[in-house]
């Protein structure tokens, strides 16, 4: 850590996010603008420079005199996370790691990997791993009039209410793997602000040609569905087991494969009506 500390730091920031204090420092002040775009939604600047976790970004680029391209590096405390001449790849790793660190260590919040929308002041939670099609379903629900809460995490408090985790949706075009960030307003939707109780859990994955014939799960099995997507399931087990049953105690839990997202949007919204 001492060696990293000796590098020349051009800019830095301490911020708070879900009860954690996080610091970021960069060797090139112009990179700070990129960094700010990658911080978790709802972050606030911290007055104190004392932090729980520290990220250090060493910006490489071309050395004009020697024509040698230097590596971009990112460190998490003293551990090197990534090293590449491609700055975007390094920044993506920074964003991904930061998001996961906050999600895993957040105080009094449980982060479930899930999409969330609101309909008639009730939350619909769609848990699922990456690439299970939850962002597509969220975007179709938003286009149908639901309010956008998240396409990444259902953030649950100790009372079981779900809070917004607002960042642009990461949509994949057909046949493409890279995601494109789309503001919810571009889909004709709006952002939620207030915490809501969960009314419906949709545990599903996309299967071409499949018909949506879900089966209803018990609350206990519903908790397992959420726990399988809970970032802090291992590190904050007691908090998760206290929070998840509360969150879904009055929710309907449906599980099944689905075909195209448009085909099930109406059926989902009717469940909450």
């Amino acid at each position, binding site marked *: 850590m001492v060696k990293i500390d000796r590098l020349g730091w051009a800019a830095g920031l301490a911020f708070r996010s879900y009860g954690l204090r996080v610091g970021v420092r960069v060797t090139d002040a112009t990179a700070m603008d990129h960094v700010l775009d990658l911080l978790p939604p709802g972050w606030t600047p911290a007055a104190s420079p004392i932090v729980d976790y520290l990220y250090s970004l060493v910006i490489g680029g071309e050395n004009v005199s020697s024509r040698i391209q230097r590596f971009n590096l990112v460190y*998490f405390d003293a*551990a*090197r*996370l*990534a*090293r*590449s001449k*491609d700055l*975007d*790849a*390094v920044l*993506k*790793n920074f964003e*991904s*790691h930061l*998001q*996961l660190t906050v*999600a*895993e260590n957040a105080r009094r919040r449980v982060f479930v*990997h899930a999409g969330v929308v609101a309909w008639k002041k009730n939350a619909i939670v769609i848990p699922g*791993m*990456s*690439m299970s099609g939850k962002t597509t379903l969220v975007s179709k629900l938003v286009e149908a009039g639901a309010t956008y809460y998240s396409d*990444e995490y259902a953030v649950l408090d100790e009372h079981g209410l779900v809070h917004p985790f607002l960042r642009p949706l*990461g949509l*994949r075009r057909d046949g493409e*793997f*890279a*995601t494109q960030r789309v503001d919810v307003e571009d889909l004709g939707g709006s952002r939620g602000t207030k915490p809501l109780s969960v009314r419906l859990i949709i545990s599903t994955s996309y299967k071409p040609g499949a018909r949506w014939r879900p089966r209803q799960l*018990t*609350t*206990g*099995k519903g*908790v*397992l569905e959420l*726990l*399988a*997507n*809970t*970032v*802090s*399931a*291992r*590190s904050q*087990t*007691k908090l998760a*087991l*206290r929070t998840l*049953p509360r969150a879904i*105690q009055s929710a309907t839990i449906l599980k099944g494969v689905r075909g195209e997202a448009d085909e099930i949007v109406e059926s989902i919204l009717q469940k909450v009506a």
Partner: protein
Amino acid sequence: MKTSNGNLPKAREGDLVTRQIPGELLVYDLERHKAFCLNNTAATVWKNCNGRRNVPQLAQLLADTNKSRVDEKVIWLALDQLEKSNLLCDQVSWPAGLARLSRRDLVRIGVLGTIALPLITMIASPAAAQTGTAITTSACNARSQPNCGGNPCSNGGPGTHCLAQGVSNCSCK
């Protein structure tokens, strides 16, 4: 694993977090990072496995609780599931001549009362990174060990994850 003395099954207590919800019991195994959902029948059997009750006594207890006749095969099925889930201290010594039965077997031979057959549902709890967002191959290649993370790779092929490659690199595989 030891064999319990004369089939007096005892529920495991250490390294478990439990949470009772209406009609079900959630159990988290901190040692193996597995989570279980026990239905009421399985939960009643498990909670009453105190190392002093035998199978007929457990069947009677379950019958009294539910005000219904309970076949001992139901208890054996529960113990079988509890043992497979590592929720008992010791291995149950299965009686000679009694085959291990599934829920389906019990339904087929007509062992159905007014109580539900025991059922334990299990999931393996994910490590934090396994719940993470998918990353591209170039983002994975930029990572350094031991921080490959295990995230799913979005363009590394189906089912690929960012894992250690060689001495210090990471790659989607």
